[in-house]
């Protein structure tokens, strides 16, 4: 059998807590988003979270609702508490992870800008 991969509620609760914490504030200042896009695909992040980090039914949450800091993202990616497989430094260096963060944050920023433009009637 090929079982579905389920996203666990504890992970979602943890994510929510992190996202709402004082750490999840700054966006897009570290890392190279272009390199990050290549790493996003090359490291296989897209397989559960989609090409644009939009998430997917039953495999991985959307990651672009808020900006990430490296500390928070690193904690989740290196030591996931859900069914997500761990991406240790041996697999994904800090630089690569920083680039990935930059890529995901750039999507968040783009969406934020779009919504703000819509809100202001532009």
């Amino acid at each position, binding site marked *: *059998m*090929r*079982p579905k*991969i*389920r996203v*666990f*509620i504890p992970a979602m609760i943890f994510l929510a807590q992190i996202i709402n914490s004082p750490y999840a504030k700054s966006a897009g200042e570290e890392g190279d988003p272009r390199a990050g896009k290549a790493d996003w695909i*090359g*490291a*296989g992040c*897209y*397989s*559960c979270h*989609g*090409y*644009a980090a*939009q998430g*997917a*039914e*039953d*495999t991985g949450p*959307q990651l672009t609702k808020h900006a990430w800091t490296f500390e928070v993202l690193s904690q989740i990616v290196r030591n996931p508490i859900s*069914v997500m*497989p*761990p*991406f*240790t430094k*041996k*697999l*994904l260096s800090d630089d690569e992870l920083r680039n990935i963060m930059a890529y995901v944050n750039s999507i968040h920023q783009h*969406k934020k800008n779009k919504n703000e433009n819509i809100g202001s009637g532009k």
Partner: protein
Amino acid sequence: MARVKSSRLSRRAFLGGSALVGGAFSVSPSAAWSEDESTPSPAKAALPPANPDAEHTIPAELPPMTFKRSGADFMVDVIKTLGVDYVACNPGSSFRGLQESIINYGGNAQPEILTCCHEESSVALAHGYYKIAGKPMMAMVHGTVGLQHASMAIYNAYADRVPVLVTTAVSADANTRRPGVEWQHSVQDGAAMVRDITKWDDTPASLQHFAESQVRAMKIALSVPMGPVLITADADLQEMELAPAHQASLTIPKLSIDRHPEGDSGAVAEAAKLLVAAESPVIIADRYRRTPNGHTLLIQLAEALQAPVIDSGNRFNFPSQHPLNLSDDRAQLLREADVILALELADVWSLSHVLRDVPGRPWHTVGKDTCKILTIGTAGTVIKSNYQDFQRYAEADISIAGDAETTLPNLIAEIKKRLDTGRVATLQGRGAKCAERAGRLRKQREARIQEVWDLSPVSSERLIMELYEQIKGDDWSLVGAPNPLATRLLPMEKYYHHTGGSGASGIGYGAPAAVGSALANRDAGRISVTIQPDGDLMYAPGVLWTAAHHQIPILFVMFNNRAYHQELMHLQRIENRLERGLRNFGIGTTLTKPNIDFSKLAASMGLYAEGPIADPAALGAAIRRAMEVVRRGEPALVDVVTQPR
């Protein structure tokens, strides 16, 4: 020593007539042999001593090489009593007698032959057909190698509890087997290969035996829990001459299908009491709905209790937009529940347990310790040891063996007996909260659709909504490979709006099952669409040709994520666990380099086709054009390059 006389005058004894003619004669080699000149003709062994004038003598009389009726004709007579409309097959010499008889004696109608390019397609087509038509089809598969091909599809049907009448064949008598292929394709017990995944099988030894076995096979297939059955039709029986006297002696028994078993009334009353008293009951339905009335009954039950329903999706059990449908909130509902009613649920264990796919595979319990689990179903009544599709053993507080749909009227009656005015008023409040929750979940879905609308490659949500935009005015049916997201996004109301799961998750089910369901929909005047995974189609793409050849209208919208994506994620999981090969998960899992052009593939088999389309803005128009073709009665395919999930 005198030579041994020939064997009995079998189908191979074209010139057994030395016993039938008087005088000497010589038999020319070309007249003595059918196809294979290496085997001595039985007639030669029986020739009288040579006559010097024999080679110039015209034979006085030859035995007949033709006859009016064959054993297979009687087999077709039997099949015609069972109401079978179609038989899907990839041709095989072992059932040439039966195939010829279906066509020329039976008039290729009821059943009509559907040509498939793989036996897996034949059986899966029959599987999908039942899901819509509600009655079984036949699938004919060549002995040994054909049955081997078909076996995965048989397992899917078995696990899905769907009746399919599988017929295979064998040359049982070694004395009459042609050397070479007929020996390679003969087997002593061919059904052994699939005995663990069929309900019943038989190898009739005579035509009367065939009649009784074929009728019995239909009866067993349709007794709940339903499932595939297998009859092996001996080739000699098929091809023997059926003399009038023999024919007159044969009878065909009447088919009598078992009434479906109903759950014990005492247990049902106990269950009703618990459900009425529950504060947070949950109903979960899996392979529950057998007939269109199943919807009506489940709605009555849910509304009587004002209880939320989780539709597990192996059948289409409950309307997707009903205010009590909280399938999207499964995990939370099960955590809160104090009573869970499971209807024909395959995996009861997972109601109260979670197993994590991490090293050691730890599991833990979820939900309330005091939660009562009530099960109604027939899954445990026909259970075999070898294949483990029966899932993990689960504790239930009340376990009722009986067909859930048959049992529901009594359960509803028992519940209504126990509902007083005060209780009804309380339950209305619960129902209102469920409706509010369902509304919130629907809004979340709508917001999500907007967020992913413009993604390229195309998002699942965009694909589904663009498809729906083009079919919402038709009497439509989503068939083939299961698509849980579509069943939640779209207004699923009529019983044919989707066809549930594949049974054993054997990939390759989707495309042929879609064609089978579309065949049944065609007969009912409905249009069929399927969201077709790319990897699934690649197993046996010849079924596209079958759809074109038999003019089965269906739209294939490819979900072309260019990978066996589930397995890609599995490989990734193991790579990460071992901290190696991070970027190697695409080896053995992706379908790239080159990318497959499904539109060309489909066009080569006679379908209207467009694509590949990765720009979501182009999708709507492409689907619209393809649907015009489908409405004309032909199959079409639109290749869409999609997000991974």
